[in-house]
Protein backbone atom coordinates (compact mmCIF):
# COMPACT_ATOMS: atom_id res chain seq x y z
CA UNK A 1 0.00 0.00 0.00
CA UNK A 2 1.31 3.41 -0.85
CA UNK A 3 1.51 6.41 1.42
CA UNK A 4 -1.21 8.05 -0.67
CA UNK A 5 -3.69 5.49 0.62
CA UNK A 6 -2.97 6.39 4.22
CA UNK A 7 -2.90 10.17 4.26
CA UNK A 8 -4.03 11.21 0.80
CA UNK A 9 -1.52 14.02 1.05
CA UNK A 10 1.30 12.62 -1.05
CA UNK A 11 2.31 14.52 -4.13
CA UNK A 12 3.63 13.16 -7.36
CA UNK A 13 7.22 14.32 -7.63
CA UNK A 14 8.75 14.95 -10.98
CA UNK A 15 11.78 12.68 -10.97
CA UNK A 16 12.52 12.79 -14.64
CA UNK A 17 15.47 10.72 -15.76
CA UNK A 18 18.04 12.48 -17.90
CA UNK A 19 17.99 11.89 -21.61
CA UNK A 20 21.02 10.47 -23.39
CA UNK A 21 22.34 13.89 -24.40
CA UNK A 22 21.93 15.18 -20.88
CA UNK A 23 23.69 12.14 -19.47
CA UNK A 24 26.84 12.58 -21.49
CA UNK A 25 27.14 16.18 -20.21
CA UNK A 26 29.08 17.30 -23.28
CA UNK A 27 26.41 19.41 -25.04
CA UNK A 28 25.65 21.22 -21.79
CA UNK A 29 29.37 21.72 -21.13
CA UNK A 30 29.96 23.14 -24.59
CA UNK A 31 26.96 25.42 -24.23
CA UNK A 32 28.28 26.66 -20.89
CA UNK A 33 31.72 27.24 -22.29
CA UNK A 34 30.20 29.17 -25.17
CA UNK A 35 28.50 31.45 -22.66
CA UNK A 36 31.69 32.09 -20.68
CA UNK A 37 33.62 32.66 -23.91
CA UNK A 38 31.14 35.40 -24.70
CA UNK A 39 31.93 37.07 -21.39
CA UNK A 40 35.64 37.00 -22.23
CA UNK A 41 35.14 39.69 -24.85
CA UNK A 42 32.46 41.67 -23.09
CA UNK A 43 33.13 45.18 -21.83
CA UNK A 44 34.56 45.02 -18.32
CA UNK A 45 32.70 46.70 -15.50
CA UNK A 46 35.82 47.42 -13.44
CA UNK A 47 36.61 51.06 -12.66
CA UNK A 48 40.39 51.41 -12.13
CA UNK A 49 39.84 53.47 -9.03
CA UNK A 50 42.72 55.79 -8.24
CA UNK A 51 43.24 56.64 -11.93
CA UNK A 52 39.61 56.62 -12.98
CA UNK A 53 36.95 57.86 -10.65
CA UNK A 54 33.34 57.05 -11.11
CA UNK A 55 31.42 60.26 -11.58
CA UNK A 56 29.28 61.29 -8.66
CA UNK A 57 25.70 62.37 -9.04
CA UNK A 58 25.23 66.15 -9.02
CA UNK A 59 23.19 65.86 -5.88
CA UNK A 60 25.44 63.30 -4.16
CA UNK A 61 25.10 63.35 -0.40
CA UNK A 62 28.64 63.33 0.96
CA UNK A 63 30.56 65.29 3.58
CA UNK A 64 28.74 68.27 5.05
CA UNK A 65 29.63 71.91 4.65
CA UNK A 66 28.63 74.81 6.89
CA UNK A 67 27.93 77.67 4.50
CA UNK A 68 28.86 81.31 4.85
CA UNK A 69 26.70 84.06 3.40
CA UNK A 70 27.75 86.49 0.66
CA UNK A 71 29.70 88.64 3.12
CA UNK A 72 31.56 85.66 4.54
CA UNK A 73 29.58 85.39 7.75
CA UNK A 74 28.67 81.98 9.15
CA UNK A 75 25.01 81.34 8.52
CA UNK A 76 24.51 78.86 11.33
CA UNK A 77 22.62 80.22 14.31
CA UNK A 78 22.89 77.11 16.48
CA UNK A 79 19.15 76.58 16.64
CA UNK A 80 19.69 72.85 16.94
CA UNK A 81 17.01 71.85 14.42
CA UNK A 82 19.54 69.79 12.48
CA UNK A 83 20.51 67.91 15.62
CA UNK A 84 16.86 67.25 16.36
CA UNK A 85 16.17 66.14 12.80
CA UNK A 86 19.21 63.87 12.67
CA UNK A 87 17.98 60.24 12.86
CA UNK A 88 21.48 59.02 13.72
CA UNK A 89 22.07 61.61 16.43
CA UNK A 90 25.36 62.53 14.88
CA UNK A 91 25.23 66.28 15.37
CA UNK A 92 26.11 68.19 18.53
CA UNK A 93 26.65 71.89 19.00
CA UNK A 94 27.27 74.53 21.63
CA UNK A 95 25.61 77.92 21.14
CA UNK A 96 27.26 81.21 22.00
CA UNK A 97 26.30 84.88 21.88
CA UNK A 98 27.84 87.12 19.28
CA UNK A 99 29.99 89.82 20.90
CA UNK A 100 30.07 93.38 19.58
CA UNK A 101 32.66 93.61 16.80
CA UNK A 102 32.02 90.07 15.58
CA UNK A 103 29.29 91.11 13.15
CA UNK A 104 31.57 90.34 10.23
CA UNK A 105 31.98 86.72 11.47
CA UNK A 106 28.50 85.60 12.39
CA UNK A 107 25.31 86.56 10.66
CA UNK A 108 22.94 86.13 13.59
CA UNK A 109 23.20 87.21 17.19
CA UNK A 110 23.62 83.65 18.27
CA UNK A 111 26.10 81.28 16.69
CA UNK A 112 27.59 77.82 17.16
CA UNK A 113 30.86 78.04 19.06
CA UNK A 114 31.39 74.33 18.47
CA UNK A 115 29.62 72.25 15.87
CA UNK A 116 30.50 68.61 15.57
CA UNK A 117 29.29 65.85 13.28
CA UNK A 118 30.30 62.29 14.03
CA UNK A 119 30.93 60.94 10.56
CA UNK A 120 30.81 57.36 11.79
CA UNK A 121 27.26 57.87 13.03
CA UNK A 122 26.09 59.98 10.12
CA UNK A 123 24.01 58.11 7.55
CA UNK A 124 24.15 60.94 4.99
CA UNK A 125 20.37 61.14 4.70
CA UNK A 126 20.28 64.92 4.26
CA UNK A 127 17.58 65.57 6.86
CA UNK A 128 19.79 68.19 8.58
CA UNK A 129 19.84 70.07 5.32
CA UNK A 130 16.07 69.94 5.05
CA UNK A 131 15.61 71.00 8.66
CA UNK A 132 17.96 73.99 8.49
CA UNK A 133 15.99 77.25 8.40
CA UNK A 134 19.14 79.29 7.64
CA UNK A 135 20.44 77.43 4.57
CA UNK A 136 23.56 76.85 6.62
CA UNK A 137 24.26 73.13 6.28
CA UNK A 138 24.53 71.25 3.03
CA UNK A 139 25.80 67.87 1.91
CA UNK A 140 28.49 68.03 -0.78
CA UNK A 141 30.06 65.79 -3.40
CA UNK A 142 33.18 65.37 -1.27
CA UNK A 143 33.55 62.07 0.52
CA UNK A 144 34.66 61.45 4.07
CA UNK A 145 38.13 59.94 3.94
CA UNK A 146 39.04 56.72 5.68
CA UNK A 147 41.26 56.84 8.73
CA UNK A 148 42.83 54.51 11.27
CA UNK A 149 41.52 56.37 14.31
CA UNK A 150 37.88 56.59 15.33
CA UNK A 151 38.40 59.90 17.13
CA UNK A 152 39.35 61.57 13.88
CA UNK A 153 35.87 61.06 12.49
CA UNK A 154 34.30 63.67 14.74
CA UNK A 155 34.48 66.64 12.40
CA UNK A 156 34.51 70.04 14.04
CA UNK A 157 33.99 73.49 12.60
CA UNK A 158 37.53 73.65 11.25
CA UNK A 159 36.63 70.85 8.84
CA UNK A 160 33.04 71.75 8.17
CA UNK A 161 32.88 75.52 7.69
CA UNK A 162 33.65 76.54 4.14
CA UNK A 163 36.65 78.81 3.48
CA UNK A 164 36.25 82.57 3.64
CA UNK A 165 37.86 83.11 0.24
CA UNK A 166 35.00 83.66 -2.27
CA UNK A 167 36.89 81.62 -4.87
CA UNK A 168 37.14 78.61 -2.59
CA UNK A 169 33.46 78.57 -1.65
CA UNK A 170 31.72 75.24 -2.06
CA UNK A 171 29.02 75.27 -4.68
CA UNK A 172 25.82 73.74 -3.35
CA UNK A 173 23.49 75.19 -5.96
CA UNK A 174 22.79 71.70 -7.30
CA UNK A 175 21.42 70.63 -3.96
CA UNK A 176 19.21 73.70 -3.80
CA UNK A 177 16.82 72.17 -6.28
CA UNK A 178 13.54 74.01 -6.99
CA UNK A 179 11.81 71.37 -4.91
CA UNK A 180 13.99 72.10 -1.92
CA UNK A 181 13.51 75.84 -2.28
CA UNK A 182 9.79 75.37 -2.66
CA UNK A 183 9.73 73.23 0.43
CA UNK A 184 11.47 75.91 2.40
CA UNK A 185 9.05 78.55 1.14
CA UNK A 186 6.15 76.42 2.26
CA UNK A 187 7.40 76.51 5.77
CA UNK A 188 7.40 80.32 5.85
CA UNK A 189 11.17 80.67 5.73
CA UNK A 190 10.98 83.79 3.54
CA UNK A 191 13.12 85.82 5.94
CA UNK A 192 15.96 83.58 4.90
CA UNK A 193 16.13 84.42 1.21
CA UNK A 194 19.39 86.29 1.26
Amino acid at each position, binding site marked *: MTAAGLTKRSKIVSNKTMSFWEK*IYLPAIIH*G*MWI*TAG*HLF*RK*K*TTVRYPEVKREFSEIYRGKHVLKRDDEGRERCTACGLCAVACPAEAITMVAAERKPGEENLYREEKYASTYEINMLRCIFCGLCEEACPKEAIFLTKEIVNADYDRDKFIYGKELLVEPMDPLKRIDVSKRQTPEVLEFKKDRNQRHNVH
Partner: protein
Amino acid sequence: MILFKTIFASAVLLLSLVVAMYSTLIERKMAGFFQDRLGPDRAGPWGIFQPLADGIKLFFKEEFMPNTADKFLYILGPSLTMLIACLTSAVIPWGPDIVINGQTYSLQMADVNIGILYIFAIVSIGVYGIMIGGWASNNKYALLGAVRASSQMISYELAMSLSIIAIVMMTGSLSMRDIVNQQQGFNWNIWYQPLAFLIFLICAFAETNRSPFDLPECETELVGGYHTEYSSMKLGFYLFSEYINMFISGAVMATLFLGGYHFPFIDKLGLSPNAFAFVSFLVFFAKITFFGFIFMWVRWTLPRFRYDQLMRLGWKALIPLAILNVLITGVVILLNQ
Protein backbone atom coordinates in the same frame (compact mmCIF):
# COMPACT_ATOMS: atom_id res chain seq x y z
CA MET B 1 77.16 16.47 -24.52
CA ILE B 2 76.81 16.41 -20.73
CA LEU B 3 77.19 20.18 -20.70
CA PHE B 4 74.41 20.58 -23.23
CA LYS B 5 72.15 18.19 -21.32
CA THR B 6 72.76 20.10 -18.11
CA ILE B 7 71.99 23.43 -19.72
CA PHE B 8 68.96 22.01 -21.48
CA ALA B 9 67.61 20.36 -18.34
CA SER B 10 68.01 23.60 -16.38
CA ALA B 11 66.34 25.52 -19.19
CA VAL B 12 63.35 23.18 -19.23
CA LEU B 13 63.09 23.29 -15.44
CA LEU B 14 63.30 27.07 -15.50
CA LEU B 15 60.74 27.23 -18.29
CA SER B 16 58.24 25.09 -16.41
CA LEU B 17 58.78 27.12 -13.23
CA VAL B 18 58.37 30.46 -14.99
CA VAL B 19 55.35 29.23 -16.92
CA ALA B 20 53.80 27.89 -13.72
CA MET B 21 54.54 31.19 -11.98
CA TYR B 22 52.88 33.21 -14.68
CA SER B 23 50.01 30.73 -15.02
CA THR B 24 48.90 31.89 -11.59
CA LEU B 25 48.64 35.44 -12.90
CA ILE B 26 47.03 34.39 -16.18
CA GLU B 27 44.60 32.21 -14.28
CA ARG B 28 43.49 35.18 -12.20
CA LYS B 29 43.36 37.43 -15.23
CA MET B 30 41.25 34.83 -17.03
CA ALA B 31 38.98 34.46 -14.02
CA GLY B 32 38.51 38.20 -14.11
CA PHE B 33 37.82 38.33 -17.82
CA PHE B 34 35.34 35.47 -17.66
CA GLN B 35 33.51 37.35 -14.91
CA ASP B 36 33.55 40.76 -16.64
CA ARG B 37 36.35 41.99 -14.40
CA LEU B 38 39.94 42.94 -15.18
CA GLY B 39 41.80 40.77 -12.69
CA PRO B 40 45.00 41.88 -10.94
CA ASP B 41 46.54 44.93 -12.61
CA ARG B 42 48.10 46.85 -9.72
CA ALA B 43 51.59 45.30 -9.48
CA GLY B 44 53.35 46.64 -12.56
CA PRO B 45 51.76 47.06 -15.99
CA TRP B 46 48.98 44.46 -16.42
CA GLY B 47 50.00 43.05 -13.06
CA ILE B 48 53.15 41.35 -14.35
CA PHE B 49 54.84 41.57 -10.95
CA GLN B 50 51.91 39.94 -9.20
CA PRO B 51 53.50 36.44 -9.19
CA LEU B 52 56.66 37.91 -7.64
CA ALA B 53 54.61 39.63 -4.97
CA ASP B 54 52.74 36.40 -4.29
CA GLY B 55 56.00 34.47 -4.09
CA ILE B 56 57.50 36.97 -1.65
CA LYS B 57 54.34 36.85 0.41
CA LEU B 58 54.46 33.06 0.61
CA PHE B 59 58.14 33.09 1.64
CA PHE B 60 57.56 35.57 4.44
CA LYS B 61 54.43 33.98 5.85
CA GLU B 62 54.60 32.21 9.17
CA GLU B 63 55.85 28.65 8.83
CA PHE B 64 53.13 26.92 10.82
CA MET B 65 53.20 23.26 11.73
CA PRO B 66 50.50 21.55 13.80
CA ASN B 67 52.13 20.06 16.90
CA THR B 68 50.40 16.73 16.36
CA ALA B 69 51.73 16.44 12.83
CA ASP B 70 54.27 13.85 11.76
CA LYS B 71 57.11 16.26 11.12
CA PHE B 72 59.09 14.23 8.62
CA LEU B 73 56.08 13.31 6.48
CA TYR B 74 54.65 16.82 6.81
CA ILE B 75 57.72 18.23 5.08
CA LEU B 76 58.05 15.29 2.71
CA GLY B 77 54.52 15.80 1.29
CA PRO B 78 54.96 19.13 -0.53
CA SER B 79 58.57 18.36 -1.42
CA LEU B 80 57.56 15.12 -3.11
CA THR B 81 54.71 16.81 -4.97
CA MET B 82 57.01 19.51 -6.28
CA LEU B 83 59.77 17.05 -7.24
CA ILE B 84 57.41 14.80 -9.13
CA ALA B 85 55.78 17.68 -10.91
CA CYS B 86 59.19 18.65 -12.29
CA LEU B 87 60.21 15.11 -13.27
CA THR B 88 57.70 14.46 -16.04
CA SER B 89 59.20 16.96 -18.45
CA ALA B 90 62.24 14.67 -18.92
CA VAL B 91 60.77 12.58 -21.74
CA ILE B 92 58.89 15.29 -23.61
CA PRO B 93 60.41 16.14 -26.99
CA TRP B 94 60.48 19.93 -27.05
CA GLY B 95 61.56 20.26 -30.67
CA PRO B 96 63.52 18.70 -33.52
CA ASP B 97 67.30 18.27 -33.27
CA ILE B 98 69.49 21.35 -33.30
CA VAL B 99 73.01 21.63 -34.73
CA ILE B 100 75.79 23.46 -32.86
CA ASN B 101 79.32 23.37 -34.32
CA GLY B 102 78.45 20.44 -36.59
CA GLN B 103 77.14 18.35 -33.73
CA THR B 104 73.47 17.48 -33.43
CA TYR B 105 71.77 17.75 -30.09
CA SER B 106 68.37 16.37 -29.27
CA LEU B 107 65.83 18.71 -27.67
CA GLN B 108 64.66 15.94 -25.41
CA MET B 109 66.31 15.20 -22.12
CA ALA B 110 65.99 11.42 -22.38
CA ASP B 111 64.59 9.55 -25.36
CA VAL B 112 63.50 6.62 -23.24
CA ASN B 113 61.94 3.88 -25.34
CA ILE B 114 59.24 3.51 -22.71
CA GLY B 115 58.49 7.25 -22.46
CA ILE B 116 54.76 6.80 -21.93
CA LEU B 117 55.29 4.25 -19.19
CA TYR B 118 57.71 6.66 -17.52
CA ILE B 119 55.07 9.41 -17.56
CA PHE B 120 52.47 7.13 -16.03
CA ALA B 121 54.91 5.93 -13.40
CA ILE B 122 55.72 9.49 -12.37
CA VAL B 123 52.10 10.63 -12.44
CA SER B 124 51.03 7.77 -10.20
CA ILE B 125 53.72 8.67 -7.66
CA GLY B 126 52.18 12.16 -7.69
CA VAL B 127 49.33 10.97 -5.51
CA TYR B 128 51.81 10.11 -2.73
CA GLY B 129 52.69 13.76 -2.20
CA ILE B 130 49.05 14.63 -1.58
CA MET B 131 48.37 11.46 0.39
CA ILE B 132 51.39 11.94 2.67
CA GLY B 133 50.65 15.63 3.17
CA GLY B 134 47.02 14.95 4.06
CA TRP B 135 47.93 12.13 6.42
CA ALA B 136 50.78 13.93 8.15
CA SER B 137 48.66 17.01 8.89
CA ASN B 138 46.65 14.97 11.40
CA ASN B 139 43.50 16.85 10.45
CA LYS B 140 40.26 15.22 9.39
CA TYR B 141 39.65 17.62 6.52
CA ALA B 142 43.16 17.09 5.21
CA LEU B 143 42.75 13.33 5.52
CA LEU B 144 39.42 13.38 3.71
CA GLY B 145 40.96 15.48 0.96
CA ALA B 146 43.86 13.09 0.68
CA VAL B 147 41.59 10.05 0.54
CA ARG B 148 39.51 11.68 -2.15
CA ALA B 149 42.61 12.64 -4.10
CA SER B 150 44.05 9.15 -4.04
CA SER B 151 40.84 7.38 -5.02
CA GLN B 152 40.16 9.96 -7.73
CA MET B 153 43.63 9.74 -9.19
CA ILE B 154 43.70 5.94 -9.15
CA SER B 155 40.28 5.77 -10.83
CA TYR B 156 41.17 8.21 -13.57
CA GLU B 157 44.64 6.83 -14.17
CA LEU B 158 43.04 3.63 -15.42
CA ALA B 159 40.95 5.36 -18.05
CA MET B 160 43.91 7.56 -18.94
CA SER B 161 46.24 4.64 -19.56
CA LEU B 162 43.57 2.74 -21.48
CA SER B 163 43.01 5.72 -23.77
CA ILE B 164 46.74 5.82 -24.46
CA ILE B 165 46.84 2.14 -25.37
CA ALA B 166 44.96 2.98 -28.55
CA ILE B 167 47.69 5.47 -29.49
CA VAL B 168 50.39 2.95 -28.68
CA MET B 169 48.64 0.36 -30.85
CA MET B 170 48.58 2.81 -33.76
CA THR B 171 52.20 3.89 -33.48
CA GLY B 172 53.64 0.60 -32.26
CA SER B 173 56.05 2.42 -29.97
CA LEU B 174 56.13 3.70 -26.39
CA SER B 175 58.73 6.34 -27.17
CA MET B 176 57.50 9.92 -27.16
CA ARG B 177 59.88 10.82 -29.99
CA ASP B 178 58.46 8.07 -32.23
CA ILE B 179 54.92 9.12 -31.48
CA VAL B 180 55.68 12.72 -32.41
CA ASN B 181 57.54 11.76 -35.57
CA GLN B 182 54.58 9.76 -36.82
CA GLN B 183 52.42 12.90 -36.70
CA GLN B 184 54.25 14.87 -39.39
CA GLY B 185 52.47 17.87 -40.84
CA PHE B 186 48.79 17.69 -40.13
CA ASN B 187 48.71 13.94 -39.60
CA TRP B 188 47.80 14.36 -35.95
CA ASN B 189 46.55 11.57 -33.71
CA ILE B 190 43.51 13.57 -32.68
CA TRP B 191 41.94 13.02 -36.12
CA TYR B 192 42.28 9.23 -35.73
CA GLN B 193 41.59 8.98 -32.01
CA PRO B 194 39.11 11.71 -31.05
CA LEU B 195 37.53 9.53 -28.37
CA ALA B 196 40.90 8.72 -26.82
CA PHE B 197 41.71 12.42 -26.84
CA LEU B 198 38.47 13.30 -25.08
CA ILE B 199 39.00 10.62 -22.44
CA PHE B 200 42.60 11.69 -21.93
CA LEU B 201 41.58 15.34 -21.63
CA ILE B 202 38.92 14.58 -19.02
CA CYS B 203 41.35 12.39 -17.09
CA ALA B 204 44.00 15.10 -17.26
CA PHE B 205 41.60 17.42 -15.45
CA ALA B 206 41.12 14.80 -12.76
CA GLU B 207 44.84 14.00 -12.51
CA THR B 208 45.84 17.62 -12.03
CA ASN B 209 43.01 18.13 -9.50
CA ARG B 210 41.58 20.92 -11.57
CA SER B 211 37.98 22.00 -11.59
CA PRO B 212 35.47 20.33 -12.21
CA PHE B 213 37.35 17.52 -10.46
CA ASP B 214 38.96 19.59 -7.68
CA LEU B 215 37.31 17.57 -4.95
CA PRO B 216 40.54 17.01 -2.98
CA GLU B 217 40.74 20.72 -2.17
CA CYS B 218 37.03 21.41 -2.36
CA GLU B 219 36.75 24.60 -0.28
CA THR B 220 33.03 24.36 0.35
CA GLU B 221 33.28 21.04 2.16
CA LEU B 222 36.85 20.47 3.22
CA VAL B 223 38.22 23.92 4.14
CA GLY B 224 41.33 23.48 1.99
CA GLY B 225 41.40 19.72 1.54
CA TYR B 226 44.81 18.11 1.80
CA HIS B 227 46.60 21.45 2.26
CA THR B 228 44.35 22.74 5.07
CA GLU B 229 47.18 22.65 7.62
CA TYR B 230 49.87 24.00 5.32
CA SER B 231 51.13 27.54 5.25
CA SER B 232 53.97 29.57 3.81
CA MET B 233 56.05 28.07 1.02
CA LYS B 234 54.93 24.50 1.75
CA LEU B 235 51.45 25.57 0.71
CA GLY B 236 53.10 27.44 -2.15
CA PHE B 237 54.69 24.19 -3.33
CA TYR B 238 51.34 22.43 -3.41
CA LEU B 239 49.67 25.25 -5.32
CA PHE B 240 52.67 25.72 -7.58
CA SER B 241 52.94 22.05 -8.47
CA GLU B 242 49.34 22.15 -9.67
CA TYR B 243 50.33 24.71 -12.27
CA ILE B 244 53.46 22.79 -13.25
CA ASN B 245 51.29 19.70 -13.66
CA MET B 246 48.93 21.71 -15.83
CA PHE B 247 51.80 22.82 -18.03
CA ILE B 248 53.25 19.32 -18.29
CA SER B 249 49.93 17.63 -18.96
CA GLY B 250 49.33 20.23 -21.68
CA ALA B 251 52.70 19.25 -23.12
CA VAL B 252 51.88 15.54 -22.93
CA MET B 253 48.53 16.07 -24.63
CA ALA B 254 50.11 18.19 -27.33
CA THR B 255 52.74 15.50 -27.88
CA LEU B 256 50.37 12.57 -27.99
CA PHE B 257 47.41 14.06 -29.83
CA LEU B 258 48.23 17.39 -31.46
CA GLY B 259 51.40 16.35 -33.24
CA GLY B 260 53.88 17.74 -30.72
CA TYR B 261 56.03 20.34 -32.46
CA HIS B 262 54.72 19.47 -35.92
CA PHE B 263 52.62 21.90 -37.88
CA PRO B 264 51.69 21.84 -41.56
CA PHE B 265 54.01 23.75 -43.89
CA ILE B 266 56.65 24.87 -41.39
CA ASP B 267 59.01 22.21 -42.78
CA LYS B 268 58.51 23.74 -46.24
CA LEU B 269 59.65 27.23 -45.21
CA GLY B 270 63.28 26.32 -45.98
CA LEU B 271 64.61 27.38 -42.60
CA SER B 272 68.03 26.43 -41.30
CA PRO B 273 67.92 23.50 -38.82
CA ASN B 274 68.28 25.71 -35.77
CA ALA B 275 65.68 28.24 -36.89
CA PHE B 276 63.40 25.35 -37.78
CA ALA B 277 63.87 23.86 -34.33
CA PHE B 278 63.08 27.23 -32.78
CA VAL B 279 59.90 27.72 -34.81
CA SER B 280 58.86 24.16 -34.05
CA PHE B 281 59.39 24.79 -30.36
CA LEU B 282 57.22 27.91 -30.58
CA VAL B 283 54.49 25.87 -32.26
CA PHE B 284 54.74 23.29 -29.49
CA PHE B 285 54.57 26.02 -26.89
CA ALA B 286 51.51 27.54 -28.55
CA LYS B 287 49.79 24.16 -28.37
CA ILE B 288 50.62 23.87 -24.66
CA THR B 289 49.29 27.39 -24.12
CA PHE B 290 46.10 26.36 -25.88
CA PHE B 291 45.65 23.53 -23.41
CA GLY B 292 46.43 25.86 -20.53
CA PHE B 293 43.66 28.11 -21.77
CA ILE B 294 41.26 25.17 -21.97
CA PHE B 295 42.12 24.24 -18.39
CA MET B 296 41.28 27.74 -17.21
CA TRP B 297 38.25 28.10 -19.42
CA VAL B 298 36.76 24.91 -18.00
CA ARG B 299 37.63 25.90 -14.45
CA TRP B 300 35.69 29.16 -14.69
CA THR B 301 32.73 27.54 -16.43
CA LEU B 302 31.87 24.27 -14.77
CA PRO B 303 30.78 23.62 -11.21
CA ARG B 304 32.45 20.88 -9.20
CA PHE B 305 31.31 17.28 -9.63
CA ARG B 306 29.73 15.51 -6.70
CA TYR B 307 31.84 12.65 -5.39
CA ASP B 308 29.49 9.87 -6.53
CA GLN B 309 29.17 11.51 -9.95
CA LEU B 310 32.94 11.63 -10.20
CA MET B 311 33.27 7.93 -9.42
CA ARG B 312 30.42 6.99 -11.72
CA LEU B 313 31.91 9.00 -14.56
CA GLY B 314 35.31 7.42 -14.06
CA TRP B 315 34.33 3.79 -13.62
CA LYS B 316 31.07 3.49 -15.53
CA ALA B 317 31.66 5.85 -18.42
CA LEU B 318 35.30 6.56 -19.16
CA ILE B 319 36.81 3.12 -18.55
CA PRO B 320 34.23 1.21 -20.68
CA LEU B 321 34.56 3.85 -23.38
CA ALA B 322 38.34 3.56 -23.30
CA ILE B 323 38.14 -0.23 -23.57
CA LEU B 324 35.69 0.11 -26.44
CA ASN B 325 38.09 2.49 -28.12
CA VAL B 326 40.92 0.00 -27.74
CA LEU B 327 38.75 -2.73 -29.25
CA ILE B 328 37.70 -0.63 -32.23
CA THR B 329 41.28 0.46 -32.85
CA GLY B 330 42.39 -3.17 -32.74
CA VAL B 331 39.70 -4.24 -35.21
CA VAL B 332 40.54 -1.41 -37.61
CA ILE B 333 44.27 -2.19 -37.45
CA LEU B 334 43.57 -5.88 -38.14
CA LEU B 335 41.30 -5.04 -41.07
CA ASN B 336 43.92 -2.75 -42.61
CA GLN B 337 46.64 -5.35 -42.51
